[in-house]
Structure formats: structure tokens, C-alpha cells
């Protein structure tokens, strides 16, 4: 399976995404330059974290106009798997590929930590085969990660099972203390309607080796390979 990692000017999580797939999963992976207009030959796309175009206006606000985004939208419309991580999540919401938006943390400060994240749906390619309710430990590192959606939008997300990840405590219970950034309903990640496009603020691509503090991220990246491979990874 071949992964593509989209690099915008100012992306900085691309190195981690490439390493996680190459060393963590042992799968084929290649960078995709933002000036390119094609994603032919890739089976899954990762839109990594960073500060695309400096994000001086708003996270992802400029990147959505990049030449590559047309191809990403077509790839998504064809039902193929796309994962937006951190800035990648922001870009996908700005591009209208995912619902809601990411606002500044209420602390107005960047926050870097490890958090507990509960998997709430297994209908996406990145959670397929993972038991619902599983709590993963993943790093976060963002200044603009407060997920917002209005009440009607939230109802729709719930109705369609589009809330994929929720900040919780170790036991899998969402509490105010376990919400690191004031996200609505402790939401850490969502999907589009069909479920093939997923975005989340935590960084699965930084959690691919126990020596780094955890390898839970591999479960998400590995899920897309299919149930058989997943078992091999977690065994």
C-alpha cells in the first residue's frame, strides 16, 4: 500500500508522517509537493501538521488554495482514505472536506502534551477493526485546536456517527479536565459523511515507537491497511 504525505510550504509534520509510515508501518510512502496537481498512484493520503504558509491568517486558510488541493478533493470524492493531522485537520475543514472549524485554544497559548483519546467509531478506514471505546495515548501540539461546530451541526455529527475521536480520561470518560483545548463535546477528531476523510488534532504519526512514549498512533495508521495487517501490528 502506498501512502502520500502532502507537503505545503511551512508543513513540519511531514517528516514525522513519512517516518511513521516507513519505520513504524514498514509501508511505502512518498512526499507529495503542494505545487503538484496529481495524487495518482497513492492509496491513502496524509495531510500533516505544521504552519502552512506560516498560518499568519488562520490555520489552513491559505493552504486550501494550493494547487494540490483539487487533486486531494477528487481523491476524497472517490472514497479513498485521507487523514488530516493537526494543521492538516485545519486545512481539510477550511477546504470544506470536513465539517466544523478549529479555533484558538481558550488559553490563547500553544499546548504540548500527551492526552487520552477515545475511539468512538470504527466506520472509517483509520479506525476500522479498533474496538469502539478503546482509549489511545497520543501527543498533542497546537495553538489552534479548539474544535467548534454549532448545535445543529453537532446533532448531525452525532446522528451520522461522524465523531471519531473524543478527549477523555484514562478510563474513557469525557471530563472537563481531559479536554485540553475547549473543544465542543471534547471532540478530538471527526470524519466526513461517508467516513473516508478523517481529521484529528492529536498526532498519531508521533506515536510510533515505545521509546518515544508510546506507539498507539500506529493503530490508526495501520488500520487503513486492513484488519489482517492490524493484527500483525498489535500482536
Amino acid at each position: 500500500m502506498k501512502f502520500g504525505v502532502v507537503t505545503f510550504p511551512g508543513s513540519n509534520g511531514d517528516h514525522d508522517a513519512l517516518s511513521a509510515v516507513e519505520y513504524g508501518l514498514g509501508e511505502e510512502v512518498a512526499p507529495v509537493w503542494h505545487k503538484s496537481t496529481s495524487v495518482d498512484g497513492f492509496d491513502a493520503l496524509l495531510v500533516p501538521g505544521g504552519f502552512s504558509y506560516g498560518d499568519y491568517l488562520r490555520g489552513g486558510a491559505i493552504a486550501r488554495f494550493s494547487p494540490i488541493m483539487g487533486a486531494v478533493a477528487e481523491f476524497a470524492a472517490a472514497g479513498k482514505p485521507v487523514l488530516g493531522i493537526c494543521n492538516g485537520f485545519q486545512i481539510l475543514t477550511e477546504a470544506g472536506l470536513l465539517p466544523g472549524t478549529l479555533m484558538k485554544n481558550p488559553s490563547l497559548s500553544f499546548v504540548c502534551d500527551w492526552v487520552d483519546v477515545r475511539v468512538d467509531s470504527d466506520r472509517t478506514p483509520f479506525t476500522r477493526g479498533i474496538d469502539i471505546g478503546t482509549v489511545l495515548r497520543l501527543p498533542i501540539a497546537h495553538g489552534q485546536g479548539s474544535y467548534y461546530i454549532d448545535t445543529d451541526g453537532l446533532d448531525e455529527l452525532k446522528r451520522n456517527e461522524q465523531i471519531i475521536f473524543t478527549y477523555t480520561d484514562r478510563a474513557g470518560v469525557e471530563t472537563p479536565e481531559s479536554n485540553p483545548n475547549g473543544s465542543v463535546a471534547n471532540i478530538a477528531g471527526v470524519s466526513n459523511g461517508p467516513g473516508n476523510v478523517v481529521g484529528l488534532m492529536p498526532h498519531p504519526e508521533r506515536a510510533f515507537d515505545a521509546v518515544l512514549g508510546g506507539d498507539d498512533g500506529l493503530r490508526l495508521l495501520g488500520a487503513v491497511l486492513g484488519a489482517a495487517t492490524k493484527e500483525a501490528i498489535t500482536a
Partner: protein
Amino acid sequence: MTITEQALREVALSRPEYDQIVELLGREPTPVELGMFGAMWSEHCGYKHSRPLLSKFPTESPRVLQGPGENAGVVDIGDGLGAAFKIESHNHPSAIEPYQGAATGVGGIVRDVFTMGARPVALLDSLHFGPQSSPRNRYLLSGVVGGIGGYGNCLGIPTVAGDIFFADSYSANPLVNAMCVGVVRHEMIMRARASGPGNLVVVVGADTGRDGIHGATFASVDNPEDSHRGVVQVGNPFLEKLLLEACLELLETDYVVAMQDLGAAGLTSSIVECASSGGVGIEIDIAKVSRREAAMNAYEVMLSESQERMLVIIREDGLDAVREIFDRWDLHSDVVGTVTDDGMVRILEDGEIVANVPATYYTDECPTYVRPSIENPDTIELRAFDPDVLQDLAHDELESALLELLRSHNVCSRERVTRTYDHTILSNTVVPPIAGDAAVIRIKGTGRGLAMKTDCNPRYVFLNPRKGGMHAVAEAARNVACTGATPVAMTNCLNFGNPEKPDVYFQLEQAVSGMADAARSLSTPIVSGNVSLYNETNGVPVLPTPVVGMIGVLEDVGRSCGMAASAGDELLLLGTQVATLGASEYLAVRHTTIAGDPPDIDPDFEGRLQELVIGLIEQGIVTGTHDTSEGGLLVSISEMLIAGGTGATIDLQALLEVNGGRLDRAAFGEAASRVVVSAPVGMADEIVAKARAADVPVVRLGQVEGPTLNVLGVSQMQVSELAGAWRGGLDD
């Protein structure tokens, strides 16, 4: 023509220095030449006062691939890789505009490292502020921390370690020292030495603006507000990220002859240094430099300190390839001149020569000064203070004293700051901030790790500069050793007051001599560094602050060690047992006294202790290690218990006996060369035996157990309360 005093002040040159320039040239310098001399002969670029002292530093070892004199030092870390690293100050800009001052400090040091061909993998920051009781100081702290995070997070380089110290003397003159560590393959190390007449001189990155003109001279006078306005630059980390990636891509080609970043003194210093160290000349036409404002003249272009610019010397046949790389990253690349064989730095403006001076006049002819050196009598008197005349701590005061120390700003948790720095990006961080005495990152593609830490106790240096200098080196090395890594080399940033004052010069001279001795003894040569003098406000210098940035190598990164104590373990103290309250945090916090002689230090003993600790970690017979520094033994133990979420029962009897029966000294006294270790039951005997064999004293302190810190016969304290005080310290 007679030069005015005001014109000389603007370029920070003295009249004798001006006369020397006239004599060298055999004529009056042109205005552009004068500006360039001012910048190159500033303390910041020319090290006028520090160069004679810096020659004392040991700079060599089998591991050193590049010593001082380049943009960064490089040491061998195995597998054909080198670590390139350096620390640099951005004190004066941060005092005026803390966010941008700190941000551009990070930007500058990152460029220094990737200029060497290294990919930056970690950032550290050593920060010194005035007391947080003042709103202005709080503003400076939050601005500086914001700027460091804002720049480093955007670049995607993890900020993994550092230190923060508070004292009155930093109130109007905070110290902001940023350190960067990069990894480079040996054969890819690039240097800033121009060569090959006919080769092209290219400026890449940002356009040149009027910002930062005279930044180098600004950093070399006291009370800069009076004479230098509008010199603080604004950083653009996005542009720097593009520059970083483009330059590293460029260095993979064969076309690059030399590379130099445009930092202090901008185009002037980069051209002069490249020409001088390569023994060639450089001719540039300033009309070819892309500018932000059309009307800028040669003087302004040559002295601008606009950020995010690099100078690259390339072979002529590589121009198209070089252009292609920078175009791909949407960056300018202006060919501004050529390398010549006449040794002259020649600047053209509209076809006219506006400066024409041998490169070496700016560098080799820069005067150096050895100033009178006399210790301040007040310091001698303060040092003579005997803390044992103070009343000892009563048993029922132990808890309040410990809480007070844990809450104090020089001891409490830095998590509020480190949380705002991205420290997990690049997926290398094995021991993150606060988890250990130093940070550890793995070196991708190898099994090795790199440990790093900045350190200095300015109070020690103030009260005894020589000893203080030794402590700074020893403690930084000890911190690195406590993670299991062998300290291999260091960088340093000497932050002092006005060296023209005999007592400040004394501090500088003595501290450097102490650092040199400790570095020699511990085999940690100094491979790079920076000097920041004139850190004064209204004639009062900052505490002498020679910051040490130490790096160490861990053969097996999987064996790195943090500071957490584990329930069921035994705690042991390795090393010095006799402590003193002289220059201690306890004295400062509890008695508001900064006096007494700092602890004695024997670098040979320090080396033995570190070797012992590294060995214990390597053999896997300790699970947590923590050196005892500010706050003394009980503070160290508390930090280990807080990290482990557990309590302990401790017997201080043996330490009380060797400390004159004084509880304050046994609990909170400070000493060099001591480390507390947490060891699984059954390992303690082996540790005692190994310590004896290494001729290092050892005390078995007690068991890690329960929810309290129980100091037998003295006091029993809830660890949750200690943790609350320690964690919340910076919130007060």
C-alpha cells in the same frame, strides 16, 4: 576632517580605535567603511574584551570535528554523524521587545546550525528574569516564552530543555540565550570559507530592509535605548523554514563552496568573515541586493540585520541548479558579487566604489583589550559571611521551609513554560522536559541518543566567580550524566556587565578560568560560544552569568534514565555529604540573604561521580537519578517523588552528623558532586560496593513507599501537598 564624538558613539568606536583605522588605511575611512569597522570591531563580532580570555578554553578532543571560529562547533557522535551546536544571546533586543527579541534569537541560532550543513533537531533556552512580583518582568517572561514557542514551534524543531533563573539584577536586562543542536554527516560539514576567485556570491531568503541597522553595536553598549532605536528585528519563522529546507537541499549538490548566515552586522560580517577566513577577496554590488525600500543606501544595505537571509558562495556552473532549488521554495536568490583574488572587501554602489578595505583589517586587526581586574570589596565581604551563625531550622519548621523552597521561582516546576513549546515534533524525544535532569533525543537511524542541558548558577558566580564557573560546567555535565549519557563537549554564552569596569572584568576573567579548568578536567572541550557584555542598567551589572550548554552521547538510547523514583525502590545519595548554606537557595528564600561562599568543588571527584552514575544506568541497576542543586537534598528527593507519584521514608541521621548537627544544612544545604538515585530493592548493596570501589561516598537514605515524605524523627509531609506547591510555583 574631524570625526565627531556622536558619529563615533553611533558606531561604538573609541577615538584611539578610529585613529588606528586611519593609520591602517593611510586615509580617513568612507562612511560605509566606518560603519563596517564599527560592526566588525564591536564586542559582539570582534570579541575585543573576551578574546584574550577565551584562549584559555580547551577546544580539542578526539571527538571534535570543528572547534570555535565557525558558525557552530561539531563533535563526532558515532555512525559517521556529528552534532553541530551553539548557544547565542539575544539579550538586548529581548529587553525592548521580548516576543520578537526572543523569536529572532531562535531564528539566528537555527541558521548558525543549518549553515554547517546540519539538520536542526533540538532547541534549548537559558532564560534569566527579574522577580515576577513586577508586572514588567511578568510581561518580559511571557513575551520571551511566547517568542521562543512562536518561532520554534513553527519551524518544527522541538524545544526540549533549558533553565530559568530569577534575580533582581535581571529586571531591566533579561538574559535570553538560545541553543540549537543539529545532526550532520561528517562529509557534509560546510564551512564559511570563501574560495575560488570567480565563484559567485549569492544572497538568498528575505529582502533586505532598514531593520536592525547597528544591531551588533547596539549589543555592545550599555543603556542602548539612548542611542539605538528601531534596531529590533521582526522574525518570520515561515520564511526561515523555507530557507532551512532549501539550504539543506542545496547542500546535497556539489555547487556550494561556503555558506554563512546573515546575523549580527548582516551582509558586512558575512562577507568579511567568508573572505577573511578563506584568504580571498569579495566584491559585491549593492544594487543587486533585493530590498524592501527603494531608497536604501549602501551603508544601510551593508548594516541591515533583516532576518532570514543567507550568503552562499557557489561555483559559476551551478547557478541554474541553485536558482531552481530556491525557485521551487519560492525564495529569492540574488547574485550580488564574486570572489576575487586580491583579499579586498569591495562594495560598489551605482558603479562607484564606496568601500575598499582588506578583509583582514576588519577581523585580524580588531584590537583586543586586557582590562584592569580587581574584585569588588563588597563581594569579598559578602563571601566572608558564615551562614552557620544563623539559627538552625526547628523540626516543626521543616515542612513550611520545604514548601517555601518548592514554591520558589528558582526551584518550582517549569511545566507552565515547557507546555507551550512543541517538544515531541520530529519524533525523537525520549526524555522530554522536566522528566529528567537533561533532555534525551534519539538519533534517527542509530541506536544512540543525545542528551543536552543548559545550566549556570549565577549566585555562585557572583559570590565566587572562579568556583561559580567550575560549578556551571560541572552541573551541566552532571545533568547530562544523570540521563546515562557521557558528556562530550560544550558551548557557552558569557553574559556579563561592562568589562571596562575592573570588578566586572574580574568576574569575567575568573569565571572563564574556572570554566576552563572544569572543562579540561571533565574532558568536555568548548567548541562554540558567544559573549554578551554590557548587560547593565543604570550602571548596575547583571549577576555574572556564564551559561553552559552541554551535550552527551548515550550508546543505547533505550537505557536512558529519568528522575522519577519508583515505589518499592531504595534511595541512595552518591557523592558529597557535607553541604553548605553559602550562596544557597535556602538562604535567599528563607533569610533573603545572598551571601556566603558557594560549595567547594573538585573536578576530579566530580568526574569520578559522573562515571559511576553513568555506569549504574548502563548496567540497569538504578531506575531514577537526580542531581541535587538549588534547594539541596530534600528538594531533589521531593522532585523525584513528585515525578514518581509516590512517597518515601528517609533517615537524615548520617547527614546531620557530618553537617554539624544542623537540620538546615542537611536538608537544604548545597554541595557539588552529589546525585540521588532510586534503585530496586536488592541492588543497593551492589551500588554501595561500586561506589566504594570508585572512591565515592554513599549514604542509604531510605525506602520509596506510601503517600508521604517521612523524614524520620523530624516531620511527615504529604507528597500531594509538596507537588501542589512545586507545580503551582510559577502561577504565583
